[in-house]
């Protein structure tokens, strides 16, 4: 059976599984659609949360960004796990005690203001839409590869599938479908990593293999990797090259953004008890950590394999020949990925070999001149293809490649669909029913939800064609926006009785607008290419890149809220009492709808 059929088989089988479980679980539980998770054990809930949370950014994109940058991109690992500590300690138990279903409802009630609720809805829509753009980038890569078509066609087909999947909606609310998605996703991520770790280091645990010895050379793997990338003029893998302030702010943005994104917080509203909200966050992180502890090993080992494939006899010998790439089965993956337009090479100096090196490095330029090289000939290697191409690069069996395709799609589709649902319910439930037209019929509300979903996916697909960055980088922007707008409002709502309605509204607006403008100045207005005035290589403020600005936006939010609150009318007593009651678990009932 050829690889194409095998991929189709794995992807098809995994979809059949999700749909099957959805139909089976749906029968008795339609009424519990909103309350997915109630009466579910914290371990099961944690697994479902992990599936919801880990998207194309974690699965498809992150290890590639680590592979080509090394230590400096550890920020993704710390940022996207450290946020769970904030969630568990600062938000989850209190929001559960509050007992409503959406983040904007909490903000509206705590700050006794419809305006605050509407501003929160606006923040959620902006952050979620940006997040979906990142997902669409990942969906395009995955569909492009597994249907063996161009990235653009893959993106358009993927958009239709995501839309159908999200409209079929109920599936998303069923916890057991998400558990199945988690199982597919984590197997797809760890199985190839185990194979590769065994090949390179002899250790079956990738997280340990990363710090083990490279079997072929007998040296520690990371020391060997440092050496070969250095010989090609690239930055050493394990050393610190980027700006420290930017690295700290970026990590912090991802952390507080995690604790400000609606689709994750929502899961903690509906666990049976306040104590379970605390445990659930821990279990979610256990299941997330399985992927996150493996990702740095995937990155380093893939970088090793790619470099060795391009320089099969060592970096001081001849590079791989064009003929080998065309005929040797070890290089078949390069042919298949070339079709997506995300990988390319060119024999610039016509010597029949493809030299892969850093042509911006002065020492390498001298070496190149001496050897008659006229520039790096591996001209394009999109970071987002690394995880999906990884099993092919390591020459693993066909079924592993099919499994990875299924896992990548599970990650991207589940999160994209979840975000579209969050956007559509914000528009139909919070905005239209809660504000514009409270008497709207259930049928019209559903219609409005579908229209909102359709608009969101068209916008995300259009912008996904020319994304502002690789999948994980675009998603990082969404985290920055959530960090600057939602997280401070939630935290102040619980930990301070001083912050009043005006303070919260002013804080959220200031955080959102300043961060959004900073991002647009660097990534183009509304992410339209070539409308930017600055680049992240040379940012407006010192060394602070637009992806790291969320932490600054959050500080602006806190400060503005505090200043405005101290100048305006004090919080009324009944709201102070509400805050007091949110702080203690006693008397927590089941979550209720508005």
């Amino acid at each position, binding site marked *: 059976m050829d690889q194409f059929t095998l991929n189709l088989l794995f992807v098809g089988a995994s979809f059949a599984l999700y749909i099957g479980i959805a139909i089976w679980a749906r029968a008795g539980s339609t009424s519990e659609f909103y309350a997915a998770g109630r009466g579910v054990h914290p371990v099961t809930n944690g697994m479902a949360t992990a599936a919801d949370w880990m998207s194309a950014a974690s699965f498809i994109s992150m290890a590639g960004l680590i592979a080509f940058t090394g*230590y400096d991109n*550890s920020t993704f*690992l*710390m940022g996207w*796990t*450290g946020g*769970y*500590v904030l969630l*568990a*300690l*600062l938000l989850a*138990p209190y929001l559960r005690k509050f007992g409503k279903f959406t983040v904007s409802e909490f903000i509206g009630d705590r700050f006794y203001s419809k305006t605050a609720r509407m501003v929160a809805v606006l923040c959620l829509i902006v952050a979620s839409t940006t997040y979906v753009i990142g997902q669409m980038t990942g969906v395009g890569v995955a569909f492009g590869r597994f249907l063996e078509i161009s990235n653009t066609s893959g993106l358009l087909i993927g958009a239709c599938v995501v839309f159908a999947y999200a409209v079929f909606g109920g599936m998303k609310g069923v916890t057991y479908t998400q558990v199945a998605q988690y199982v597919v996703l984590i197997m797809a991520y760890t199985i190839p990593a185990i194979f590769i770790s065994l090949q390179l280091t002899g250790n079956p645990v990738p*997280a340990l293999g*990363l*710090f*083990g010895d490279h079997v072929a050379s007998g*040296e*520690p*793997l*990371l*020391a*060997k990797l*440092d050496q070969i990338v250095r010989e090609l003029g690239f930055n050493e893998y*394990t050393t*610190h090259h980027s700006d*420290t302030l930017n*690295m*700290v702010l970026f*990590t*912090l943005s991802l952390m507080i953004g995690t604790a400000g994104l609606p689709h994750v917080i929502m899961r903690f509203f509906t666990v049976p*008890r*306040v*104590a379970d909200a*605390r*445990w659930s*966050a*821990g279990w979610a*992180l*256990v299941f997330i*950590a399985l992927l*996150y*502890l493996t990702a*740095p090993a995937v990155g380093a080992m893939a970088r090793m394999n790619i470099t060795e494939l391009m320089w099969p006899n060592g970096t001081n010998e001849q590079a791989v020949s064009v003929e080998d790439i065309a005929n040797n089965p070890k290089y078949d993956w390069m042919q298949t990925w070339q079709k997506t337009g995300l990988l390319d090479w060119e024999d610039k100096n016509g010597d029949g070999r493809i030299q892969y090196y850093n042509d911006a490095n002065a020492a390498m330029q001298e070496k190149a001149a001496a050897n008659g090289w006229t520039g790096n000939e591996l001209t394009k290697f999109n970071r987002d293809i690394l995880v999906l191409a990884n099993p092919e690069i390591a020459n693993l069996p066909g079924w592993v490649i099919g499994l990875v395709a299924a896992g990548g799609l599970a990650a991207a589709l589940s999160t994209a669909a979840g975000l579209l649902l969050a956007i559509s319910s914000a528009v139909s439930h919070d905005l239209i029913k809660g504000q514009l037209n409270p008497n709207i019929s259930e049928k019209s509300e559903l219609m409005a939800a579908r229209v909102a979903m359709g608009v969101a996916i068209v916008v995300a697909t259009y912008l996904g064609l020319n994304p502002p960055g690789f999948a994980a980088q675009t998603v990082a922007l969404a985290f920055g926006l959530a960090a600057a707008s939602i997280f401070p409002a939630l935290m102040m709502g619980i*930990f301070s009785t001083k912050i009043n309605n005006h303070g919260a509204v002013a804080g959220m607006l200031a955080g959102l607008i300043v961060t959004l403008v900073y991002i647009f100045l660097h990534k183009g207005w509304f992410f339209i290419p070539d409308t930017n005035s600055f680049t992240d290589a040379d940012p407006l403020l010192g060394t602070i890149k637009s992806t790291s600005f969320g932490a600054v936006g959050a500080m602006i939010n806190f400060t503005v809220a505090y200043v405005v609150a101290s100048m305006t009318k004090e919080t009324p007593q009944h709201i102070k009492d509400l805050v*007091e009651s949110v*702080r*203690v*678990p*006693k*008397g*927590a009932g089941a979550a209720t709808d508005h």
Partner: protein
Amino acid sequence: MSDKEASNAYWKANVRLILWSLVIWALVSFGFGILLRPMLSGIAVGGTDLGFWFAQQGSILVFLALIFFYAWRMNKLDAEHGVGEE
């Protein structure tokens, strides 16, 4: 002790616990993983140093331990201050 006093004492103990947990949270990630890495560079771990290990593995493991410790400690605090759910 009235309900109000009980919940004030409970909240104080909770905030203290949160602050200590966040100190550890920041120390292992921003500290060991980034800012203090040069100071840890003398400690070798598998071809690199301890700071690299904290940035890519250690911080995540400590985060896990922190959340479970907090949940366990808070459940005890709920009971001690009589503010638990049952």
